[in-house]
């Protein structure tokens, strides 16, 4: 069995698995985060439609994790083709930071975004403060993306 695996370059399969997991986790996290913010946001817009733009901006913030997952998956896909086993496993491991941190940070960012929409509901002028608070969570997703990219670069 081991001999078969080593001889048949199953590295590609592992790398694809890594790309899939990375995108799946990060994008579903973003979907959840955006949805949470969107639900609160539509309530606010229902009350006062002039607040659509700030609400939309805040709602869009947790969507970046999905984009990061997409970028990492794409970079891994670019590496495919005759990978050996250790490279494949490395790529799979490299996919994890962007994927897992993306999943978790997107959900938490969605929570902060939803709360920040509450700020907008009360005082439109303080939208920026809400954005800054929401972006604090984003930093960790960015680190996740970076770590993944740097690791992919070494494979």
């Amino acid at each position, binding site marked *: 069995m081991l001999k078969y695996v080593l001889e048949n370059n199953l590295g590609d399969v592992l790398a694809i698995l890594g790309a899939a997991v990375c995108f799946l986790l990060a994008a579903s996290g973003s979907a959840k985060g955006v949805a949470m913010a969107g639900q609160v946001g539509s309530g606010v817009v229902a009350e006062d439609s002039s607040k659509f733009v700030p609400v939309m901006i805040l709602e869009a*913030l947790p*969507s970046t994790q999905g984009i990061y997952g997409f*970028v990492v998956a794409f970079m891994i896909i670019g590496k495919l083709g005759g990978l050996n086993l250790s490279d494949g496993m490395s790529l799979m491991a490299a996919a994890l930071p962007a994927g897992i941190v993306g999943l978790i940070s997107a959900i938490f960012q969605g929570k902060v975004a939803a709360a920040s929409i509450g700020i907008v509901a009360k005082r439109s002028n303080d939208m*920026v403060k809400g*954005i800054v608070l929401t*972006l604090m969570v984003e930093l960790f997703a960015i680190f996740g993306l*970076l770590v993944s*990219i*740097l690791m992919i670069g070494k494979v």
Partner: protein
Amino acid sequence: MAIVDMQKISITGLFKDKKAMLTFLMKQGVVDIQDIPIESEYEDVFSKGFDKSMESGIESDMSLLSKAISILEEYDKTKKPLFKVRREIDRKYYDEIAKNDNKLIRLSEDIIKSENSIKDFRSEINKLENDTLSLIPWADLNMHISMSHTDKVKILLGIIPEFIKPQTYTQAIDEQGFLCQIQQVSKDRNNAYVVVYIHESDADKPLHYLKSIGFSNLEYNFEGIPHYIIEDNKRDIEKLRIKIDKAKEELKEYASKINDLQAAYDYFAIKKGLLIVDDKILSGKYSFIIDGWIPKEKAQVTVKKLDELFLCDVTLREPYDDEQFPVLLKNGFLGEAVSGVTEMFSLPNCREADPNPITAVFFALFFGMMLSDAGYGLVMVIACSVVLVKFKLEFSTRRFIRLMLISGIATMVVGALYGSWFGNFIPTILSDTSMDIALWFDPIKDPNRLLMWSLILGIIHIFVGYGIKGYNDIKKKKYLDAVLDVLPWYFFFTTACFMVSSYIPSVPAGIYEVLTPIGSKLFPFAAASILLTQGRHKKGIIGKLFGGVASFYDLISFMGDVLSYSRLLAMGLATGVIATIINQMGSSGGFTIIGVISFALIFVVGHGFNFAINALGAYVHSSRLQYIEFFNKFFEGGGTAYSPLFEETKYIKIKE
């Protein structure tokens, strides 16, 4: 880079001139009138405040006008500009409006009345339509619908479930010998509409039977034969429709007056401004006192004019050293463009440097690095230039567009350096994806190198922040602080960066082999300098030492801040990679007619989406880097905005 110098102006004038003088000051629009507290010994000499009933009178007029304006906006068919600007009008026209204010109030009352009558007509039509609907099943009934009996016979209208056939009940009635007859008038999907005639002598039993087969009685409040009622309703509805059309025509005619109404609204807004400013002015029996701030450059002219026009005493003085004065920023193109972003954080206070011009440079640079596509930048530059040249804009819109213009230019430059024109569009259409058109290097191929440059830019940004802090200290004449709060940190951070330089990817070995030993040797001295200087405001030797030790923590937050700039790489890569994917998808159709058309479609939609999401990201992340990493180092903020008494209007701008 400038916060405008202010002078305090105090005006004492004759009470009879008060209104004229306030009107004059309002036209000038330069004096930010301050509230003067009344000292207790002068309480019986001076008073403040204004007539609240007059204020509420003006406000009710304004709400009438704004209601009328919003009604007319629906009927106003003139073309609206893309960007809302206040209309410029002559002072003469404005005075005309002011004279006719009552007429315009009456006009807006008329407008509201016609709008209300339209609403009434609509609800009447609604009611008639509902009536008609409920009468339609009885259209074939040839008697008065309200007739409930004759001499001997009871008449009931009602419904029987549709599935019970007429034969069933006629048979039953015959068999049981009831003095009762049922006539079916019409039926729909669920019910049959029937008239029941019952002889009064024996009404209970047939009624009981009818209940058992599901008959339920309906009563109507109409007079007359259903057929005619329906006809009448139709005629009435038609009449009401005509009335509505007429009222609408009327409103359409009024719509040409919308400009006058808007001007009148602003006339009342100005009037209100003149009234409520009395809250800040001391008024006595014969005189009044105004206290306020005026920009230094306009002070002399205003004083001269005041002296010419009124009998009054005006004094000017410089602000005291610890006195806060309102903040007015005066900036060139760059500084003005970004001032909206800064103001969302806070207005600088009157004693610190205006950070806008420097912020503008970094904002645009970081925006460019995050959007990082020359094609997108080109689109932004063209769109913003067209808007700036072609449209009249209000101040806040104009400065935003300008900000986007400089950000677009930065995006173009960075994109060209990275070799990204709509992603890899150029290599894609030349079918040579390995082609490198980057003027500097392509971050997708070498992200580590860009990471290094992002961090270096971050360090520069933060160092500039410390530099402004030093500048602020010099401005406040705290020279010792200016030196000790800045230089030790530069020294400390620089040695720390040298020490870790070998860990940062892409730093050439030749460089870090030189830097690391220098850093390691100097770091203890730098740490000592921090230890000795940063606790100096604390009390006692131990306090000072602890204060110094505690400041080491700033190294951690400095590292965190620098790492935060890695988003410049991450966001830039995200744009580039997605753009590449879009081009790949588009070009998969090959060089056929269908392939080219689908490429065009995918290109427009895909790049449009990529641009929108990444421009938004670049905007908010670039703002964040200013707010958290940059402003934190020096910005005190908390300035009050300069808000002079001026003709504050919503729709019009008065021209002399």
